[in-house]
């Protein structure tokens, strides 16, 4: 089977700093990583390939340096990597992103064989929208299986797939058809270490680089800023509350007195709470 995994290179957001005066992001020196949610998708794809045979193609849209993320994916064991990179893609919102990626997936299909499954992560840690996966599914007319916790079975001959899907309040067991798009839930597996062979192969591998034209995208008005119906009008820092917390005076008090002081202060501010806690709690 052929599986395409869409990944994204993101800044390691734990290390992002905002300039205190200008409110802009200080990106310099911030390391990049593969969006952590995408690794669950990649591992699931690798497992399916190992079980059923076939190939895993990783695909990303991003700046030239996104090649690093693809190479990393190869070290985990992906068979092929495609980088979709073009200045026309700059400023894409989710609609424009799903357009470009879906065109590239179609091209991947033409070039390397039609995918049976397209995977994405549940969401990214920088955009956090969880909307690109569904967007790709809709554009490619793939069946959409989001928040998949487990792939229970795949029947390649019958083009059938059964999955467990997280839904509100429980797990849905769904039977659907290939080809489909799956967004994997986090915590469902753990990315493998990757073998030495894979590492060597990754170092030697040629990464396929496509411009918009290479990917067969003719209508550039659907890409990047121009293809994005949404615009960011304003970026700003959250305002803080005017007053700081009222502090309990801790000088020369026993723990017991301090605890009583804090509780008294809580119930002074929220008198109705005492009754409520007395009813629910304290048992």
């Amino acid at each position, binding site marked *: 089977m052929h599986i395409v995994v869409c990944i994204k290179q993101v800044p390691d*957001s734990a290390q*992002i700093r905002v300039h205190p005066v200008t409110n*802009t*992001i200080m990106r310099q020196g911030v390391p990049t990583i593969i969006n952590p949610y995408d690794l669950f998708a990649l591992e699931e794809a690798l497992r399916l390939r190992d079980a059923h045979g076939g190939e895993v193609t990783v695909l990303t849209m991003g700046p030239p340096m996104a090649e690093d993320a693809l190479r990393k994916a190869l070290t985990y064991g992906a068979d092929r990597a495609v980088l979709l990179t073009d200045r026309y893609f700059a400023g894409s*919102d989710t*609609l424009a992103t799903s357009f470009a990626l879906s065109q590239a997936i179609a091209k991947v299909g033409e070039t390397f064989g039609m995918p049976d499954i397209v995977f994405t992560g549940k969401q990214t840690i*920088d*955009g*956090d929208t*969880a*909307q690109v996966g*569904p967007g790709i599914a*809709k554009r490619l007319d793939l*069946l*959409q299986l*989001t928040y998949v916790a487990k792939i229970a079975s795949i029947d390649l001959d019958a083009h059938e797939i*059964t999955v*467990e899907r997280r*839904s*509100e*309040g*429980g*797990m*849905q*067991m*769904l*039977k659907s*058809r290939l080809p489909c798009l799956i967004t994997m839930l*986090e915590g469902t597996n753990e990315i493998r270490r990757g073998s030495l062979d894979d590492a060597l192969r990754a170092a030697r591998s040629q990464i396929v680089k496509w411009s918009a034209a290479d990917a067969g995208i003719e209508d550039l008005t659907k890409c990047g800023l121009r293809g994005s*119906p*949404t*615009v*960011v*009008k*304003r*970026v*700003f*820092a959250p305002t803080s*509350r005017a007053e*700081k*917390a*009222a*502090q*309990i005076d*801790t000088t020369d008090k026993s723990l*017991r007195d*301090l*605890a*009583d002081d*804090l509780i008294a202060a*809580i119930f002074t501010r*929220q008198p109705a*709470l005492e009754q*409520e*806690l*007395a009813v*629910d*709690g*304290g*048992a």
Partner: protein
Amino acid sequence: MSTANRETPSPTAGRAGMKKELPEQFKDYRHVWVFIELERGQVHPVSFELLGEGRKLADKLGVELAAVVLGPPGEATWHAVAEAFAYGADLAYVIEDPLLAHYRNEPFTRAMTDLLNTYKPEILLLGATTLGRDLAGSVATTLLTGLTADCTALDVDADGSLAATRPTFGGSLLCTIYTLNYRPQMATVRPRVMAMPQRVDKPVGRVIQHKLAMAEEDVVTKILGFLPDNQSAKANLAYANVVVAGGLGLGAVENLQLVKNLARAIGAEYGCSRPLVQKGWMPADRQIGQTGKTIRPKLYIAVGISGAIQHRVGVEGADLIVAINTDPNAPIFDFAHLGIVIDAIRFLPALTEAFTRRLSPHNRDKLAS
């Protein structure tokens, strides 16, 4: 939905100037819609929270607020319609069909896009739940319109456009996003981000019924079964009245017990900051914050939590925030209402004991008399 990696991070980010007059085909898009999430006979409370927010937008625009109820034929669907009226909807668009008994992407996307194309609202709000996010992405892509995910504030500006604000850059900043030149303007909002509006008994509203142009044979994906979550094991943080949470300041996994003891004594749910989930000290469904749960309790006690912005956005809706932290300069004291600078490991047992004393049956009787 505008992703955080836009190339224009400047505060005066720039395409707002491209805002033109709305194209002719979108000019008759009017009114505000809220998707009512009905699953297994229950309306997700986020739908009511959105009706509260939708009411404000509709009033500002001078238009009507409509609820969209998609469900199976029968009582549950009509009960959801009645509830939508009770929470402020002027009218409801209803599709009753057996295909809509349980959520599946295909029939719900079809039902929603048909309604949108037929009745043309200017704004559509959905909950950012697994269901809402699954549906919103498909619908927005089908209509090729803009969608802003996980908004924390919604407003309409002077010319009537939806101004949707959401965290960006890992939550360190907020951005306000517009959908230029397309309709409807779509936004999702996570549960508990907006306040629950007042419920008003037995108000009436208009109902517009519509048919689903789909048969079971047209739906590829079949539901084989449903395994409900074990309710007792599952945290219901989002809707808890009192929440106690621990952070890295607890120092060691054993000290979590101190937080759990306090929670038990006051009948609270317990939760944590993100690093505790990453360390495997607590399950992910107990994480509070931007990438965890948003909570709105009457009382929130944060223990050994520094108050990073990503944590703060998840707790700001609490009526009373109490912070226990050794560092007088911890950012949590900038938004907590009450604070105490103290070693939590020493203090928590005393606090639990003091609460237990105060709330003991003996004192409870005194309180009642």
